[in-house]
């Protein structure tokens, strides 16, 4: 029966396509991950505003403030909490989606993507610690954006191409941030908060 055979041929081709795609790219990134991470970023940045305000520091007075050790400590704690919250939320939604589409979350492409992502983030982390060490705090926020952007662009080979554009935007924001010392937090809020939400919403609409 020719129609039977055609059916099998079509199935074979679909199977081949699916296996090639699945084994080379990690397509389970969820838009909700981006939105959740963005919200965590917004919350984190607002808490830092709040901490500074409590210390009687007006972030926008244009004065180069020398922060005390306790304030820096608090900022670090808030940053770490924000990062943890953003990562776990992002992981949760992506995990949920990978379950739904039947892709293993720790598949080789996911590992490749994680490795490509991890290196710039690790280097960026070290650079930021060095900046803190040298008390050049105003560069920390733009640097996190730049290295995060580089990490994102590096993963494009293994996942949705939208991350590339997100990465470029983050890098652009980071570089602009270097020209406007004192507004690091604003750029941070735009980069980690607003951009993530826009990206997440776009991804969610496109891939559902």
């Amino acid at each position: 029966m020719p129609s039977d055979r055609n059916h099998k041929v079509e199935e074979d081709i679909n199977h081949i396509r699916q296996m090639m795609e699945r084994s080379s790219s990690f397509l389970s990134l969820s838009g909700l991950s981006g939105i959740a991470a963005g919200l965590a970023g917004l919350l984190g940045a607002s808490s830092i505003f709040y901490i500074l305000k409590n210390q009687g520091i007006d972030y926008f007075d244009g004065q180069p403030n020398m922060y005390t050790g306790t304030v820096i400590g608090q900022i670090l704690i808030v940053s770490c909490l924000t990062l943890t919250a953003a990562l776990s939320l992002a992981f949760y939604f992506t995990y949920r989606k990978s379950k739904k589409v039947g892709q293993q979350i720790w598949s080789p492409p996911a590992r490749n993507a994680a490795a490509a992502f991890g290196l710039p983030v690790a280097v960026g982390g070290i650079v930021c610690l060095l900046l803190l060490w040298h008390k050049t705090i105003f560069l920390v926020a733009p640097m996190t954006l730049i290295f995060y952007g580089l990490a994102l662009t590096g993963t494009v080979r293994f996942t949705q191409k939208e991350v590339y554009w997100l990465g470029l935007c983050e890098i652009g924001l980071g570089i602009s941030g270097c020209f406007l010392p004192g507004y690091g937090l604003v750029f941070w809020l735009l980069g980690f908060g607003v951009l993530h939400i826009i990206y997440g919403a776009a991804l969610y609409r496109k891939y559902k």
Partner: protein
Amino acid sequence: MKAVDIKGLNRDFESRVRLGIMSVLMVNDEVSFSDMKQMLELSDGNLSSHANALELNGYIEIKKSFAGKKPMTVYMITVYGRAAFSQHIDGLAKMISKT
């Protein structure tokens, strides 16, 4: 029998498992036994018997080594295998376009 062009079709790739192994190897340079097993959702025995058959015909290469004391099996596609599988895909595509 209708005159169907079966020239491009390769009997060695008829099984779903072998299609899967070849497809994965077309787009990945090296794939370990456990990754392959996970991606294709196969049992140990099923994967190794099909992989061995593919190796026997020269389509893939099986590299065995030890990571510490654990045996590590890695699959790679051969130049011949890549050409043969491309031809098979072309054959399949032709069959579809004929209808």
